């Protein structure tokens, strides 16, 4: 390092290279970079872990394993395995890419109007979609009416993922061990929560209403313009997150608690489920559904699509916000 010339030391290339290597981190001043740990440190790290275990109430019963022979053997074995790993990964990557490229070369040319994918299925969606679903945006009409079962499954994926995250990250105050951890988590969180940051608050003051209105617009106009329940819900959720960051949990808890979350998702998903079941049932039994399609292009049109979009939007907004709070402090 010392023999390097000054101009090289300050050159952009070196800075860039260091940044790529993770040595210096211009973006996070004062934060220690998290890097991929080289294998040599592994044993050391494991000893650290063993020492740390002593503090952990839950793990205290487990005796610190002396670094016996087997451990070293294992570490060495892993090191050899890792070299093999790297070579194998390159070979595998190239192999998969080559096989798929070979396939792609035999596929129909992109953008051709006569490709097999552009068949009578797509034609009917375009030609009759407006009359049959009432949605101006053909994609929305397709996913919420023609292929609605998929979309219902998709909301269930989101629902069950949020349940899994709840299982993993929610800290319940009741249990003894957990309560301590909750306190730790909360005190930790206050480190990071900006207290009355005036710049952030003023910006949020301007931005949050705009984001919210934009999100609501996307949801309500899902059948008329690009967007729909999912994208609008994500925008709404990020608006909520911004508000939370600017004003803190206390203010947020007046508006949004776990009860609100549960009830909203329950109502939205129940409505979704019942509405779609009704439409599936009538459709399969060749009954009239009796839901008016309305004039295409008006905001109150296209039958069930608008309420379904609202439901999806609510679920997604709540879920995104809940993901955020759970990741941050394990509760709402």
């Amino acid at each position, binding site marked *: 390092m010392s023999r390097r010339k000054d101009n090289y030391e300050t050159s952009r290339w070196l800075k860039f290279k260091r940044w790529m290597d993770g040595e210096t981190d211009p973006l996070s001043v004062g934060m220690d970079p998290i890097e991929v740990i080289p294998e040599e440190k592994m044993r050391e790290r494991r000893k650290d872990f063993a020492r740390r275990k002593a503090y952990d109430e839950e793990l205290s019963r487990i005796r610190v394993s002396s670094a016996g022979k087997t451990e070293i053997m294992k570490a060495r074995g892993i090191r050899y395995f890792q070299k093999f790993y790297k070579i194998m990964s390159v070979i595998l990557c190239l192999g998969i890419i080559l096989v798929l490229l070979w396939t792609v070369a*035999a596929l129909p040319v992109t953008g051709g109007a006569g490709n*097999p994918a552009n068949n009578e299925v797509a034609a009917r969606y375009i030609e009759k979609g407006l009359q049959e679903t009432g949605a101006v945006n053909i994609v929305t009409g397709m996913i919420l009416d023609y292929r609605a079962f*998929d979309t219902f499954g998709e909301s269930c994926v989101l629902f*069950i993922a949020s349940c899994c995250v709840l299982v993993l990250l929610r800290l319940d105050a009741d249990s003894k061990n957990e309560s301590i951890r909750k306190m730790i988590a909360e005190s930790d969180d206050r480190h990071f929560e900006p207290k009355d940051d005036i710049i952030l608050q003023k910006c949020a003051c301007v931005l949050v209403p705009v984001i919210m209105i934009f999100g609501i617009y996307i949801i309500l106009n899902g059948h008329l313009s690009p967007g729909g329940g999912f994208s609008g819900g994500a925008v709404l959720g990020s608006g909520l997150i911004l508000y939370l960051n600017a004003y803190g949990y206390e203010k947020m808890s007046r508006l949004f608690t776990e009860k609100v979350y549960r009830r909203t998702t*329950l109502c939205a998903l129940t409505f979704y489920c019942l509405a779609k079941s009704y439409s*599936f*049932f009538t*459709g399969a039994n060749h009954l009239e559904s009796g839901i008016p399609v309305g004039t295409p292009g008006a905001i109150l049109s296209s039958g069930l699509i608008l309420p379904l979009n609202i439901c999806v939007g609510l679920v997604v907004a709540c879920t995104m916000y809940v993901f955020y709070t759970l990741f941050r402090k394990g509760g709402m």
Partner: protein
Amino acid sequence: MSFVQNFPFFSIIIAMFSGIVSSVLDGKKARNLSLGMIAVTTALSAGTLIFCLGTGESYTFMMGHFPAPWGNEIRAGILEGVTAVFFGVVMFLAVIGGLKHTAEDVEEKKLNLFYIMIDLMLSSLLALVYTNDLFTAYVFVEINTIAGCGLIMIRQKGRSMSAAIRYMIMSQLGSGLFLIGLSLLYDVTGHLLMSPAKESVNMLVAAGSYRIPMLVIMAVIGVGLAIKSGLYPFHYWIPDTYGYATPTASAVLSGLVSKGYIFLLIKIFYRVLGYENLVSSQMANVLYVFGITGMVMGSVHAIYETDTRRMTAYSSVAQIGYIFMGIGLGTSHGMVAAIFHIFTHSATKALLFISAVGLYEVSGDKKDYISLRGAGYRNPLAGIGFTVGSLSMVGFPMLSGFISKLLFATSALESPHKMLPTLIVLAVSTTLNAVYFLRLVITLYSRRRPGDAPVPETAPRGSWQLKLAILCFIGVNLVLGLASQPIVRAITDGLAVFG
């Protein structure tokens, strides 16, 4: 259209709806709702099965107002009905058998979340069984994966969480391959529903166009679902996953989840890609080779294990090898044998996991199989259950495993090239099975030695639910073993109208 034809749709929706409602209930209510839901859906599936047996045909059910190539569809027939009923029964017994351990392993406030996973798991399994649309299948495969991950990690122990992340990674690899296979298939056929897709696949094959993409599609979809169901070279996640989850989760995961994927794979092979194309393109042979390797290697790994539950998990690897071998035989009899083995294996493996729990309870919850010495006397019913399961896996007459081995052997006689290797591997694998299962059974009934760890003084804690579940599972095994004729006939008839 008769009202009974709505039943498959009702069963899927009821399962999903009870999952959604459970999110606001407390643990006990969620449990009761879940049990009631499983019973109702099983009854509905039985209704569907009886209806289909009466007509002898399958029917499609529009999900919405739009017919086949435009809207979603589900399809029900004899095979689907049998599978759905069977999955329902196994799920019910697995949940009943593990009730007490579930309550112990899961935090009380999170109990309802566990039953949400069970509900959505069942709904996704039913949807995989009934679906007639490839993209619906993808979405429900994802629900199944996430619910499976939830069931593993709900125990919140270090080992089960690391098992969960491993499972997630492998499953995501599988899903990624499956999805790219679907995209390729959509690109060359332009359809996502199975029946129109099959028509255009047949046309493409007849015209000889898009040869390479068709081959890659078969390979990618096959490998993707094989990874998810844990075929031999991709099995690394299985032992951890099955060995460290809560008992209900182990039984459900080993008995149902992987079988759901295999059923989907069979469905795609039959109803989209065409089984004869699969055979002519040598893909069947590849699956066959993987299958027979798995049969031997899974058993060899199992012999080296000392932990009973991991041993049982490795035996699952071997049994999945059997199923893929049956698919790879390339004859319809081989397929019947494979499907029958799906049933055999899910009933037997669930029985083994559930009764292993009963044995652990009386041996101080040690992992080592040596500590189980004499456990068969301390908890007689669990001992009998484990013995029956082991004998069935080995292929003892009167039990279900014997019938499926018989079916495999007779179907192997039809294909001249594969006859010899199949019979040899069947014999080897049976011997290996016998080695480690009988070793366990003998341990169960041998006298304790002075050096053994002391047994906890507490009386056998086996709850009546556990006993009931073990008894029912033994019953299911005996039914599959003794009254196999009607089931095999139903499978054969179902396969005939499947394509």
